[in-house]
């Protein structure tokens, strides 16, 4: 209820001199930056700048050739994605990666996977601890459903949902993991203005209500400048700038490479 809970804390994740290449293509070269607890960190840059690759490195999907990542004080080069998940990193994808054959509810329930521990023998009976556990997690998931206002689509198979809602369900699934670090890959891509506003509100609410640290990639400059605490700018796999939205906006390199658009558009 007080201001200091939102206050930005210590470094949560540190990226040190990460380089990543595929065959002859250098996707990332020597990238370093950090993400602090409770902040909203934006990663921006033109297409092909290596933003998604960066997220893929952070959550273990790509293994960088050089450099190290420190998460919660633990240093590592590479790990399997499910280990990253276990450590508290959740993410959403640029092209929605939901489980198409399952309902909204089941999709979000999968996010609880790591927090459910009753073994298959209990589940076979669907009784006792397994059922209690299932109900507890259903309740948590319902809170998230309530939070993201998707009650009406609880039972709908996600394949039938419009794109904007699918993105919201994907966010719900990530939230169900109760992550410490939430990576959002273009959470507002392909949305109309109204949906974007909703999504912005949800991102801010998540950050505020749960104190979740968020790293996001987004193309809509207005959104980025509005909601993020700090911005890192990538271009052709190199880091171009790093700082508060205002600093980045004023950076000549960034303007040249990327923000060639008038500033007032960015503030719309």
């Amino acid at each position: 209820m007080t201001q200091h809970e939102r206050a930005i804390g210590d470094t949560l994740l540190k990226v040190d001199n990460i380089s990543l290449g595929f065959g002859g293509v250098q996707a990332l070269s020597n990238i370093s930056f950090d993400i602090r607890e409770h902040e909203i960190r934006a990663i921006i840059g033109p297409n092909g700048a290596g933003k998604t690759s960066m997220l893929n490195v952070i959550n273990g999907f790509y293994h960088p050739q050089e450099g190290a990542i420190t998460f919660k004080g633990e240093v590592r080069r590479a790990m399997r994605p499910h280990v990253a998940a276990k450590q508290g990193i959740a993410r959403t994808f640029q092209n929605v990666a939901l489980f198409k054959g399952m309902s909204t509810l089941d999709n979000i329930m999968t996010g609880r996977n790591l927090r459910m521990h009753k073994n298959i023998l209990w589940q076979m009976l669907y009784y006792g601890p397994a059922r209690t556990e299932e109900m507890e997690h259903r309740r948590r998931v319902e809170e998230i459903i309530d939070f993201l206002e998707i009650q009406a689509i609880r039972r709908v198979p996600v394949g039938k949902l419009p794109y904007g809602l699918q993105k919201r369900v994907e966010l719900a699934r990530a939230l169900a993991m109760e992550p410490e670090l939430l990576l959002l890959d273009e959470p507002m891509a392909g949305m109309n203005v109204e949906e974007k506003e909703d999504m912005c509100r949800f991102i801010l609410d998540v950050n505020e209500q749960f104190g979740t640290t968020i790293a996001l990639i987004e193309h809509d400059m207005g959104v980025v400048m509005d909601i993020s605490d700090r911005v890192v700018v990538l271009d052709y796999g190199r880091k171009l700038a790093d700082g508060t939205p205002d600093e980045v906006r004023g950076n000549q390199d960034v303007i040249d490479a990327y923000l060639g658009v008038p500033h007032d558009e960015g503030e719309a």
Partner: protein
Amino acid sequence: MLYREAGQFKTGYNTDQSIFPIRQDRWAIALFLAVAVVAVPLVIDDYWAKAVLLPLLVYAMATLGLNILVGYCGQISLGTGGFMAVGAFASYKLTTAFPDLNLIIVLLLSGCVTAAVGVLFGLPSLRIKGFYLAVATLAAQFFLVWLFNKVEWFYNYNATGQITMPPREVFGFLITGPEATPAATYLFALGFLIVFGLVAKNIVRGRVGRMWMAIRDMDIAAELIGVRPLMAKLSAFAVSSFYVGVAGGLYFTVWFGAVEVTEAFDINQSFQVLFMVIIGGLGSILGSFLGAAFLVLMPILLKNFMVNWLGVAAVTAKHVEITLLGVLIIFFLIVEPHGFARLWQILKEKLRLWPFPY
């Protein structure tokens, strides 16, 4: 039209997540079970048991198992025949080695043995996907059949290479052997199916089931929410093989009583069960029952119709049957690729919304 859902509200997650949340469905299933458990045993005879009901129950069991693997976890397997053979031979070895062991325990243990074998042959699934995996599982099919045919220990060194089920009692009722009554064998198999049908439903609606479906729908995303592909796939292979193994055990112990491995568990068995899964509906427990029922009953009806009504020679009838089976399968795939389960789902939705179209 038959549904009256107004007023059937849920005040807890328990009732909300029950298998049959709608009262009318509960009545229907209770009625169906009452008929199956009480009425059928009163009228069953040897023909009905051996030609219709036992095949139905055994295949339903196998289909459940395969559906868990293919329908829920998305891993195609063509080794079902081989795994059924494992179940059959395991139950033969167990029951001959430990004659006092309860047949229920024997079958459960056979299931466990098959599960272990299944996990072994499921290992390649970690590296390969799709049809590569399907072809790889054929290795299990051929290897296992070869093994049981070749290694005499499996059939206790008898001369014929056949295995024969000795008579066994369960709770004082003779279940196996030629003297067992049709009702007893039927009820025994039915009991297995009811219990394991329920168990299957419980697994797939819980954490493990969701984990499998996550792997099936998008393995990359599944991994990123913390699902370990190794665990998910191997557990699906294990559970699936357990069911198939029990089905194989039932096939041998209560249905045929004596089998010869190359005949009973050849690759057509694998296809047969896979068809049941597909026609019943991938990823549906109900569909598994419907698919098994359809593919067991249809050839019987076709044959009866042709031989008894049209007077076609049995050999010709067999060929026509195979052709028609093929035609029907293709027809079904074209009309409703998602199987009976989807058809039922659509029908049910229509009934719930009646008289409205949507």
